[in-house]
C-alpha cells in the first residue's frame, strides 16, 4: 500500500488544522475536568451518605 503524495492544501492549511485540533483537544480536557469537579464536588462524596439508605457507608446503629 502506498500513500498518495501530500496535496498542497495540506501544507497550506496546516496552521489552521493545528489550531482547530488544539482547541478541540483543550475543550475535551476542560469538559473532563469539569466533570470530575462536578462529580466529586470538590471532595470524594459517597452517594446516599445517610445512615440506613441503600449504598450508605455509615453503619446503621440498631435502636436499643
Amino acid at each position, binding site marked *: 500500500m502506498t500513500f498518495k503524495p501530500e496535496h498542497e492544501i495540506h501544507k497550506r492549511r496546516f496552521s*489552521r488544522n*493545528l489550531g482547530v485540533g488544539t482547541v478541540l483537544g483543550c475543550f475535551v480536557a476542560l469538559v473532563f475536568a*469539569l466533570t470530575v*469537579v*462536578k462529580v466529586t464536588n470538590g471532595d470524594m462524596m459517597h452517594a446516599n451518605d445517610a445512615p440506613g439508605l441503600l449504598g450508605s457507608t455509615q453503619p446503621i446503629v440498631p435502636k436499643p
Partner: protein
Amino acid sequence: MADIRSFDDMKEAGFGDFVQLLKPRVMSLVVFTALVGLLVAPVHLHPVVGFAAILFIALGAGASGALNMWWDADIDAIMRRTKSRPVPAGKVEAGEALGIGLALSGISVVMLALATNILAGALLAFTIFFYAVVYSMWLKRSTPQNIVIGGAAGAFPPMIGWVAATGYISVEACLMFMLIFMWTPPHFWALALFMNEDYSQAGVPMLTVTHGKKSTRKHIILYTIALVPFAIATAFTSIGGPIYLAVAVVLNAEFLRGAYRIWRRDEDQAAADKYKVEKSVFRFSLLYLFLHFGALLAEAALRPYGFGGW
C-alpha cells in the same frame, strides 16, 4: 467549477484570522470585568468551574463579535479603523463569520449554563442577542442613541460573572452593570469626536454626524455627570470599601474635569491642537474603567486579611 482549484486565488485564512473574528481586544475587557464580577461575589467557585465560566463568557462575547463582523462587513470595509478586519479584507467569507458566530453562541451559552447555572447561561444568551440583533442589526444604523443602548451589551459581563458564582442578581451586580453602561457613551463619543470622518463616510448615525460636535460635547459632560453617582454608590455596597472609594473619588473628579474641558472647547480649538484633549480623555476613560474594577478586585483580595471592605 467548485473544486479545490477554484480556491487557489483566494487569500487563505489562517487560524489567526478566525481568532480576529472574535475581537480579542474587546474580549480582554470582557474577561477582566467578568473575572472581577466572579471574584468579588460572596460565593467561591471551584477554580476549574470559575475558569470555565470566564472562558465561556469570553467565548460568548467573541461569538457576538463574529456575528457583528458578518452583519457589518459593508460598513467595516469603508471605515479606516475597521477595513483590515478579516471579512472586509477578504480573508474570511461573511458566511463563515455567521457560521462561527452562531456555533460559538450555542456552545458558550450551553456550556456556561451547564458549568454554573441556567440564569448565567440565559444572561449570556441575552447579551449575545442584544449585541448582535438589537445593537448591530437594529440600533447602530438607525439612531444616534445607538451606543447608549448598545452599551448594555458590554455592561453585562461582570453581572454574568456575579450570577455564575451566586446564582442571583443583586444590587452589586446591577451597579457594576451601570458603571460600564453609563461609562460607554462618553468613552465612545470622545472617540467619535476625532474619528468623525470614518462614521460619516460609512453612514453610521453617530451623534457627531447627526447632531454635530457641539451637541456631542454637551452629551459627554451630561453622561459623565450621570455616571458619577453609580461609580461612587458602588463603594457603599458589600463589594466596596475605603480603597475603592478613594480610587473612585479621584478617577471621577478627573473624568469630570476632562469632560468639562471637552465641553468648553470648540471645533477650532480642537482642530488647532489635533484633538489633544479629546484623545487624552478617551485614553483616560480606558484607565478609569480598568482602575474601578481593579479597586473592586483589591477590596476582595484584601478582605481575608482584614483590610478590604468596610
